[in-house]
């Protein structure tokens, strides 16, 4: 068990080093930030001064090592544009992204889980076909276009909901649906296959043979076990949503991490982009590590596979 955990942690560290190194290299290969920071017509001395001020005159290897050292102490550098520490900007925006992610997760669960259960219990009926259609549409409708259509319907035509910004539940509703829609489809698929697996297992057959009514078998026996992978996925998805909602946040002018990244990219704010992208990697590698270890604790068979 200890060996398993140690190996998983080592892999996670290696993953993060490769990821941060790649991001770091790409950022530096594609342009000179100094030219963007200086005013037009700045002299060579000015450029050299800025370069030195921001530590950009040192070799990439030194810059990377310094960056990683600082990152480990929670210091991700200063944004060129805001002149504020990246971590400060990030954690200012994080609660907004979390709020959006939580609502989107809730919506994906509300659509995906009931539809998945019905689809599995009534397998190969027209209920199942409808659920499959919903799953297919979840993958086929681009979330950002769904967001635009929601604005057209609920803001422009019906005038029920505000188009942008953060505030109360009315602000979060449309972006959460647009973001959660795609994930609802994956919830639905997983709930369905997980329920089908559990419903085909011996203990469910036994429960049925004992003469328990269908409702009890499905609600008490199958549901509980089938939902373990579903809620695991919901947790992982939440972390992904917090970090991947760039377009939805741009469309709805939602002040989250995604829009911070978007702004950073267009202002060529290297430390900001680098910091936000690497923090996203940290969060996702972290949640995957937690899930892996938790599953190994629950199920000893997992520890034996590599």
């Amino acid at each position, binding site marked *: 068990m200890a060996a398993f955990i140690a190996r998983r942690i080592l*892999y996670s560290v*290696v*993953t*993060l080093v*490769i*990821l941060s190194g*790649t*991001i770091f290299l*790409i*950022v530096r*290969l*594609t*342009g000179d930030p100094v030219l963007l920071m200086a005013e037009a017509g700045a002299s060579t001395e000015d450029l050299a001064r800025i370069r030195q001020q921001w530590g950009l005159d040192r070799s990439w290897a030194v810059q990377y090592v310094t960056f990683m050292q600082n990152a480990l102490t929670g210091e991700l550098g200063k944004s060129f544009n805001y002149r504020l520490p990246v971590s400060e900007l990030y954690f200012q925006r994080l609660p907004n992204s979390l709020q959006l992610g939580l609502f989107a997760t809730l919506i994906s669960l509300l659509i995906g889980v009931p539809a998945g259960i019905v689809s599995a219990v009534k397998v*190969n009926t027209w209920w*199942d076909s409808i659920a499959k259609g919903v799953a*297919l*549409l979840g*993958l*086929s*409708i*681009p979330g*950002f*276009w769904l967001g*635009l*259509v929601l*604005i*057209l319907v609920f*803001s*422009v*035509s019906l005038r029920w909901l505000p*188009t942008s910004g953060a505030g109360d539940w009315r602000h979060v509703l449309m972006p959460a649906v647009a973001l959660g829609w795609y994930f609802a489809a994956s919830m639905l698929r997983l709930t369905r*296959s997980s329920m*089908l697996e559990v419903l085909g297992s011996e203990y469910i057959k036994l429960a049925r043979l004992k003469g328990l009514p269908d409702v009890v078998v499905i609600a008490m026996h199958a549901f509980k076990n089938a939902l373990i992978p579903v809620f695991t996925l919901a947790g992982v998805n939440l972390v*992904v949503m917090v*970090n*991947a909602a*760039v*377009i939805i946040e*741009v*469309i709805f002018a939602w002040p989250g991490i995604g829009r911070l*990244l*978007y702004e950073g*990219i*267009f202002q060529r704010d290297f430390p900001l*982009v680098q910091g936000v*992208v690497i923090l*996203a*990697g940290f969060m*996702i*590698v972290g949640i*995957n590590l937690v899930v892996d270890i938790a599953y190994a604790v629950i199920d000893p068979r997992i520890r034996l596979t590599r």
Partner: protein
Amino acid sequence: MRLAPPMSIRSRREAPLAAVVILAALVLVAIFADLLAPHDPTLPVPGANVFDPPFWMEGGSTAAPLGTDFQARDILSRLIYGTRVSLIVGLMGTLVAGAIGTLMGILSGYIGGWVDQVIMRVTDAWLALPAIVFAIFLAAMIGPSMWNIIVILGAVYWTRYARVIRGEVLTLREREFVKLAEIAGASKLRIIKRHILPNVANTAMVLASLTVGVVIIAEASLSFLGVGVPPPQPAWGLMLSEARPTLLAGQWWLTVFPGVCILLIVLATQLFGDWLRVKLDPQQRNL
């Protein structure tokens, strides 16, 4: 009493007619865009105003049947030429991703050892970022053009192939015909070409059919954010982006039509991919 076979099994074995028809139609539209489009997609329609509505609405005309955009360009012609962009990026991006991923998967699975370790750790690192964030990041850094987008999306979406194909190769490697070829003295390259590659081709095809739609949506997303296909090229994502300022003015046709096109093409590829998966892999039939 005669039991009818369950609907799903029978219907799953026949090619999904609707998907094939939609895909065939879209391919034809893309090929013959020059003949089909009534106007030049990058120039204003002569005599038309900006934001003319579709022909069935008041103020619309059949000169621009689906209306005009903010530069008085014909929406229909732009949609027709946009099919080309979506299909080229979707297919070529998938091809690049599939080529990189299949190669990595085979090398990783067949050679093993430190090669396997390196490739798998890089795959992990790639998967640690949401694909779309990675793609936006690369596109913003490298600069917008259709061919850049193809390479970028290929460079982002190869990881799924690498993982799945590595798994297949690990079992293939232990099969008798591979062992015998090794004993007979065949070179590694020959074994990969003659014995491994043909046996992972089906899996690669299924993955490809399911990746096309993802790549098409990714291209639309990048173009929408202004880091994809640059204007004045007619790409659906770009059309949605150009429609954004007019959203609140109620010019819905600018937003609805390009989105419906994306929806149709992705839906058709997904249906086709699902069918292909079941057809090529009988074990998948119950899922």
